[in-house]
């Protein structure tokens, strides 16, 4: 049976022939082998991270001479050193600014959280009105979003940079975030929110309307709280993506530095900082701690709410 026939019979519940029982020893072995491959894969993901963490507590000589072994002496000097050395100089119109770890952390949070929260909220707005209201333009906006999502338009990077410079969003983080945040009525995130709103019954809103609630009150007090886990999932994923972002700081924000950019620069020019290999490793650990903390709190939302439906329209 082809996958397409299987799909149809799955939908209709009609199957002409009883499917052969294929639960054999071979199938069991296949499952055990596949499970073992998954387990081994998980171990390979952990090895570099575990190696990184314990190596960041080594002395530099220990690291060079015994690259795999546990530290002979556990030292925290790499961390104190990297906190002192990790500074980035960025040129602004009115002079040279130095970004220390604190200001890089602030920039990272600012750049990771604000666009993620705004973008996800824009997704929620569009997801809500397109899923729950019939109005002129509904189908047009939905279909436009799908078309934009699947249509690969390349070569707009140069134009985007030119426009950012012309409009003043270049090297202006707040303006850039407010005027060109990610989110809206296209992309995977929109589909995720749209699908989530589709599953919420409208009867909650009708009950509130009987009690005299306005559309805005229904949205803010009833619908948004119901969609909050999905919103948190989107914000968390947007946060991780923004935390990761160093390319934007290379291209759009030449006078800012976030932690990802700082670490990127730090390891690339370690000699300039007179930094040892273990200090660079300690820098990586410092960079990953905040995103791990954020994920730790958002884990259950991401695990349960990250699902995408089809492209109807």
């Amino acid at each position: 049976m082809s996958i397409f026939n299987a799909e149809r019979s799955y939908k209709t519940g009609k199957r002409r022939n009883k499917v052969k029982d294929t639960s054999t020893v071979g199938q069991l072995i296949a499952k055990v082998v596949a499970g073992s491959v998954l387990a081994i894969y998980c171990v390979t993901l952990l090895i570099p991270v575990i190696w990184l963490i314990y190596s960041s507590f080594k002395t530099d000589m220990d690291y060079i001479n015994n690259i795999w072994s546990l530290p002979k002496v556990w030292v925290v000097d790499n961390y104190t050193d990297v906190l002192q050395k990790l500074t980035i100089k960025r040129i602004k119109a009115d002079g040279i600014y130095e970004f220390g770890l604190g200001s890089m952390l602030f920039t990272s949070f600012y750049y990771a959280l604000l666009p993620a929260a705004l973008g996800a909220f824009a997704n929620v707005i569009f997801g809500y009105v397109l899923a729950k209201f019939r109005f002129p333009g509904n189908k047009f906006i939905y279909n436009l979003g799908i078309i934009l999502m699947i249509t690969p338009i390349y070569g707009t990077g140069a134009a985007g940079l030119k426009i950012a410079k012309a409009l003043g969003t270049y090297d202006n983080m707040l303006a850039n975030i407010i005027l060109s945040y990610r989110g809206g009525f296209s992309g995977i995130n929109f589909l995720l929110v749209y699908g989530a709103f589709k599953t919420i019954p409208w009867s909650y809103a009708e009950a509130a309307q009987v009690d005299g609630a306005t559309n805005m009150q229904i949205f803010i007090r009833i619908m948004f709280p119901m969609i909050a886990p999905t919103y948190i999932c989107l914000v968390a994923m947007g946060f991780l993506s923004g935390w990761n972002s160093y390319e934007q700081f290379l291209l759009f924000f030449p006078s800012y530095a976030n932690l990802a950019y700082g670490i990127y620069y730090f390891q690339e020019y370690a000699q300039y900082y007179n930094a040892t290999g273990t200090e660079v490793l300690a820098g990586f650990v410092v960079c990953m701690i905040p995103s791990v903390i954020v994920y730790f709190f958002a884990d259950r939302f991401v695990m349960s709410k990250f699902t995408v439906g089809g492209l109807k329209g």
Partner: protein
Amino acid sequence: MERSKKQLFSDKKRSDYIFVYGIIAWPFLVWLFFFLLTNIESIALAFEKIDVYGNTTFYAGNFKDAFDLIFRTKDSPLMTGFVNSLKYWFWTNVFCFPITFTFSYLIWKKIYGFRIMRLVIMVPHVISGFVMTMIMKVFINGPLVSVFQGVGLNVAMPLRNPQYTLGILIFYTCWSSFGFSCLMYSNAMKEIDESIVESYHIDGVSGMWSEIWHICLPGTFQTISTFIITASGSFLMTGGPLLAFYMYNAPTYVYSATYYFTLQIYNVGTNYSGYPVITAAGFMISFVTIPVVYLTRFLLNKYGPSEE
């Protein structure tokens, strides 16, 4: 009475419209403004010639120049980028899909230790792909080289070796990318109605491959088709994290088309004279990939799952 009902309905409709248009106005206008501006500027750029002083004149030859850049330049880095992007695309989308789906199935079936495994496969995303790449850059050049040397393989500078580097980068891209896909497919599998699963079991469907074929693939086909459609348009522009691995100094033989474009935009800096040709090249890629996407969508709609 009838009129007042109509009046009530009309008031309700009016208040709905005010709410809907009011709430979407700002994000829609922001999008419209930037989307239109960027695309209009892109079209304009593709037909401009910009001199070193920033003066622009109309020039229709950018597409020819882009064509020459791709096909008539000896050892064209952009052509190398396309070929490598195709390789990246094949391995990350075509080759990895069955593996991702099987992993998702195992998580859905709650095999022993699935909670920990589900968490661990997200590690590259949780500690951030960027930091993971930074770690791997050090890890490949240090501990992994020592392992290779230990088994008698002399792989000096694996990230600068024409023989191995592209393979290592593609492997790394695949290896670090299972997390979100696994999560998405396993969550999609969770949404399959239990009564359908039960009925298939009664009909004799059991065993891993059988369940994947008869239950999971059909049950998650909407999700799969979304990703087939979006992935079908990226076959010329898929790439690994070259910027994180090499900054601006990647060896040409590992270029992806995306890296080439990024490099051009970064390198050009404030001098726009190189922008028109790369913009024209971008449009040429779009001309090739857009029909592929819509053909894929058409085929999936025609031969794939029905709406209901």
